[in-house]
């Protein structure tokens, strides 16, 4: 059976309906060709011909030409359009021309570097092994490192390793730095938010080091489609970058469906579960022999889906499994094996988190099914791009969850299909990030007076660092004066560099995976059910100082979800203004404390809440920036509701505000946090309760906070302050336009959790905030 047949089963008349809200067909496109440039060395052209490449796609030709001319280039083209050739060809040509030439490739993950290694080694084989290419990362054995430093023409690594393993030891890498001509940065679009801000600073350090060795290397970026690739690349390197974005690659026929799970209770606004519907749809494709990739937005959902699909497709005796999971926590060898199985077609279905969204070479599959909107337009296209057979057609299905963002997208398909993709924001001059990298920079080479490092006032910062004992000024230079190695304490990806390892004690103890510190608190707390490879483990105990979680296999009919309590403290107001309500809007600095205080047990399939427990885990603290709206007492008093109804309204409103803010900022959902706190600065902090509301009484003047989910902030709060009016107007549209009666997961949150009058109260507050006129409750037909 072909893709088209199954699509016809889902939508027999071929027209959108209440469930399948969009059917977007993309016709096949022919390739645009360009000849292999004349300057390409004959042996290299022959090596490519040996792999069936006689001509280049037009975008490849344009990119290699610009790189050859010495320009910095960013190549922006869809999945599987041959972007690696754009950088490999000019780099290899330069190495063949002059064997001293060196290049450094950065990939966001180790898996991507491995993938590229295989491709380059293959090419190297047909060039008589004229160049050395090696990965250099945390998995590289210590005894191989010395020889790699000497022999590698191309070093494949990641920003984390560059930051902590290469730059602080640059004198051991003299061969590389003295001859460094190209720096390739793949998957540029992943470097946004805090990761991108860190990378910009790592690159500032890298450029200091290359200057020390007298080099000025060129940068080559490749990126998935985002709105501002050129701007992002320019901000990352602080220099000019040319954009190549007209793809000449061919593409097969494809259909993209938006699927909104049917309503089962219109009154409560409850739809069928997104997970179960994804399972049902994926199962149908797998059943008909189509190779299928399922994406989930969380590790937990991925494991639940994997459990279901494995039960449908049990492992044939004596043969390898045909359904596999794939995510960050899996060990490298396991991942390589899965990638191979996918390419060879042995594995018929894979359930992944965002890990397989990036350009890991697994070939093209028939179908991609997404459980929930991935959060950004760019990610959605990346995931959909995994389905792309040249023959027989391919299909991508987005199954909406009941989250407001998902509902907005599937109800307004034109927003997705005709809208521009997201902007990637970074803030390289975030002081917290910049100062940390300034320390690393001083460790690597003494900072010279008059040197520049981003926008910072270097002199002032160095003086502060000297007062704190980090630096010492001598003869026009600032020297590092600490015993410690600063890069060790700085993680590019999260608040801390700690990882928890998961130790399975069912038999002899063995490590089965790891999770980063922040998610450890909510995924491997005591009594949590940890799913790995669809096997359930229960966490027996957590060794906090040793960063270990000990688990044993169990057979439970539920999984667990952590309950997180968040508290906010206002530190400084940058700007504030009175707005309608009466209320006040503001943005500034805050301190966020969050703590996992308990967990819920959720039953498989029915997803009922079947129990809960309390936990005492350490607090996490973060200093960041926030935008907030403080509701004046007069507004609160004017609401015709009880104290608890008002609170329900506030939480409902916050829930909707957060969703709309993500949409307007075009940011990843994880980038933004939301909480409620006391507004008036002279009133003491409210006492805590598990759901974040005061345990008795109510806030005098409550404030709704939307904060940057990164220490130091990444510049989203001020834009929110500027679009305050638009944010409230859109939120009002979302809630009043929702079909539910008294609140549902798609607007203010499920009525069972937010209270009977949450939607009504949230609307009443909103109407006062947008200027007092009452807006009719609109019902969609």
């Amino acid at each position, binding site marked *: 059976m072909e893709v088209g047949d199954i699509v016809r089963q889902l939508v027999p008349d071929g027209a959108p309906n209440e469930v399948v809200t969009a059917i977007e067909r993309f016709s096949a496109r022919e390739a645009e060709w360009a000849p292999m440039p004349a300057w390409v060395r004959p042996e290299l052209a022959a090596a490519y011909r040996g792999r069936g490449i006689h001509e280049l796609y037009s975008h490849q030709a344009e990119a290699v030409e610009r790189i050859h001319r010495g320009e910095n280039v960013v190549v922006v083209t869809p999945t599987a359009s041959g972007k690696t050739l754009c950088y490999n060809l000019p780099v290899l040509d330069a190495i063949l021309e002059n064997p001293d030439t060196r290049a450094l490739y950065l990939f966001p993950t180790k898996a991507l570097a491995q993938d590229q290694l295989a491709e380059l080694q293959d090419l190297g084989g047909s060039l008589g092994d004229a160049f050395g290419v090696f990965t250099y990362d945390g998995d590289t054995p210590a005894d191989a490192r010395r020889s790699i430093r000497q022999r590698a023409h191309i070093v494949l690594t990641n920003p984390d390793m560059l930051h902590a393993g290469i730059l*602080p*030891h*640059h*004198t*051991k890498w*003299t061969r590389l730095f003295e001859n460094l001509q190209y720096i390739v940065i793949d998957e540029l679009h992943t470097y946004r938010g805090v990761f991108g801000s860190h990378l910009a600073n790592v690159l500032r350090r890298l450029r200091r080091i290359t200057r020390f060795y007298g080099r000025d290397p060129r940068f080559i970026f490749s990126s998935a489609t985002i709105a501002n690739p050129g701007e992002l690349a320019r901000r990352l390197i602080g220099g000019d970058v040319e954009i190549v974005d007209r793809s000449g690659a061919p593409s097969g026929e494809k259909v993209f469906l938006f699927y909104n799970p049917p309503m089962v209770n219109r009154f409560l606004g409850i739809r069928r579960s997104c997970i179960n519907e994804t399972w049902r749809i994926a199962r149908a494709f797998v059943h008909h022999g189509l190779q299928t990739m399922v994406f989930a937005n969380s590790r937990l959902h991925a494991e639940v889906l994997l459990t279901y699909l494995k039960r449908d497709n049990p492992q044939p005796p004596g043969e390898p499994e045909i359904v596999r999971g794939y995510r960050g926590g899996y060990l490298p060898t396991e991942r390589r094996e899965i990638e191979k199985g996918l390419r060879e077609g042995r594995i018929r279905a894979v359930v992944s988190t965002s890990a397989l969204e990036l350009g890991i070479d697994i070939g093209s599959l028939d179908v991609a099914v997404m459980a929930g909107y991935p959060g950004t337009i760019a990610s959605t296209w990346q995931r959909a791009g995994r389905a792309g057979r040249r023959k027989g057609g391919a299909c991508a299905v987005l199954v909406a969850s009941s989250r407001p963002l998902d509902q907005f997208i599937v109800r307004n398909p034109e927003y997705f299909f005709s809208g521009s993709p997201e902007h990637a924001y970074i803030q390289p*001059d975030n*002081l*917290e990030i910049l*100062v*940390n990298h300034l*320390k690393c920079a*001083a*460790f*690597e*080479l*003494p900072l010279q007076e008059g040197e520049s490092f981003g*926008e*910072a*006032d270097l002199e*002032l*910062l160095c003086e*502060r*660092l000297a*007062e*704190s*004992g*980090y630096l*010492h000024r*001598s*003869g026009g*230079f600032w*020297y*590092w*004066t*600490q*015993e*410690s*190695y*600063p890069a*060790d304490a700085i993680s590019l990806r999260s608040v801390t560099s700690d990882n928890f390892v998961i130790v399975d004690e069912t038999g*002899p103890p*063995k490590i089965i995976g790891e999770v980063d510190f922040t998610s450890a608190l909510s995924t491997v707390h005591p009594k949590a059910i940890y799913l790995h490879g669809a096997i359930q483990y229960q966490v027996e105990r957590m060794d906090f100082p040793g960063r270990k979680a000990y688990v044993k296999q169990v057979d439970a009919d539920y999984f667990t979800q952590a309950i997180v309590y968040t508290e906010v403290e206002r*530190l*400084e107001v*940058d700007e504030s203004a009175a707005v309608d309500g009466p209320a006040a809007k503001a943005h500034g*600095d805050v301190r966020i404390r969050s703590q996992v205080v308990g967990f819920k047990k959720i039953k498989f399939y029915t997803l009922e809440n079947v129990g809960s427990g309390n936990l005492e885990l350490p607090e996490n603290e973060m*200093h960041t920036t926030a935008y907030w709206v403080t509701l004046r007492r007069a507004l609160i008093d004017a609401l015709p509701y009880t104290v608890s109804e008002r609170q329900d309204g506030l939480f409902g409103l916050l829930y909707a505000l957060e969703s709309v803010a993500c949409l307007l900022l075009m940011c990843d959902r994880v980038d933004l946090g939301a909480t409620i706190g006391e507004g008036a600065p002279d009133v003491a902090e409210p006492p805590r309760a598990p759901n974040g509301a005061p345990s008795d009484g109510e806030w005098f003047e409550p404030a709704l906070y939307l904060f940057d989910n990164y*220490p*130091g902030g990444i510049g989203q709060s001020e834009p929110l302050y500027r679009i305050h009016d638009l944010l409230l107007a859109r939120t009002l549209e979302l809630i009043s336009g929702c079909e539910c009666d008294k609140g549902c997961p798609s607007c203010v949150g499920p009525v069972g959790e937010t209270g009977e009058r949450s939607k009504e109260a949230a609307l009443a507050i909103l109407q006062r905030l947008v200027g007092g006129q009452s807006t009719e409750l609109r019902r969609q037909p």
Partner: protein
Amino acid sequence: MTAIPDRLCQVAALRPKSGAGGHAHRTEGRRRAEELASLLGGRMEQNGRGSHFRVRRRFAGPAAEPLAPGAWRRLSPGSVPPPCDPAGWIFLDTETTGLSGGTGTCPFLVGVGWWEADGFSVEQFFMRDYGEEPSLLEALSERLARFRVLVTYNGRSFDWPLLETRYRLARFGAIPEPSVHLDLLYPARRLWRWSLESVALAEVERHVLGFDRGGDIPSASIPQRYFDFIRGGAAGPIAEVFRHNQMDLCGLAVLALRLNRMLGDPEHSDCAGGELFGISRMLQKSGELPLAGRLFRKSLEKGLPRETELRAQRELALMAKRERNFRVSNEFWEKLLDGTPEGFDAYEQLAIYYEHGARCPEKALGLVREALVRLRESCGSGGTAEDRYRKWHGRLCRRLARLERKCAR
């Protein structure tokens, strides 16, 4: 970014680490040089790259001794240049701003020592501030150029790579390493890790060489003493670092002499069992097998800790086997039969002997069965880790299957 000054106090990365960042009282630079000079008897030195502070001292002992025959190839197996007497050796030890390595760790005091006609000379190069480093490096390279053998303690992986980094950063063209680098940590580990908890130089001095440093400072305090000094702190605490470094160099020289004697005539030196075991392993490395065998036996006579005893017996069994002296090797294997790594080796070796040598597969089969029982017991009691269990289990099972077929025929 006009608002920077107000925001700075909120930046966690700018705050001092707990306890650090005390402001030492500033004393004027020149006066402190005088203070140091009066405490240590050194002076400022000028060269083409600036100036640095230098201390010279002469110690009456230890007296140099000629190189014992054989000691060289045992200490430095495979080194090309012909041996030279300890009088041609230079000892080196650095005091640094940290132990983590990398380009931000700096050796601020480099001490070297060598023998002269009338005693042991120590010279120390010190930078009073970072700006004096190039001059220090220049003086050091001139001194090193006069010697052929560099002797350190853990210098191969720590002091020397660090100095190489400093020469690179200061853009020196050539890096002046003497032609042979003898790192005494390696022989010290071989000889004393069985009897000492730590083979840190001061521990070896105390327990092996029999002298106590008395009022020495803890090494961990050294970086902070330097940071305090460059921020204007008093000279007293840093003077103690100089003395510590002198003790390290003298200790290193005494250790070198002790090793020279022990390795020169290991059969007649008064060594403990563990030391003999270590020497035997070194002799295996330098290819002196008959002597190694004699010393393994002697070490067993003198008494060894259990773990080392098993290893010595295993080595002797393997050596006898290589000489095809099966009577002797079997004798050792028989003693070793047990649920230990050496024990599994022994079961396997005996099984090989009975299967192929003595042509008695039934006896081999019995041994393999017994070994499997021992292996299960040992894994059950935690004596064998899972990966080793799997390795041995596979090997034994393959042998078992073959022997069963053989015996059934």
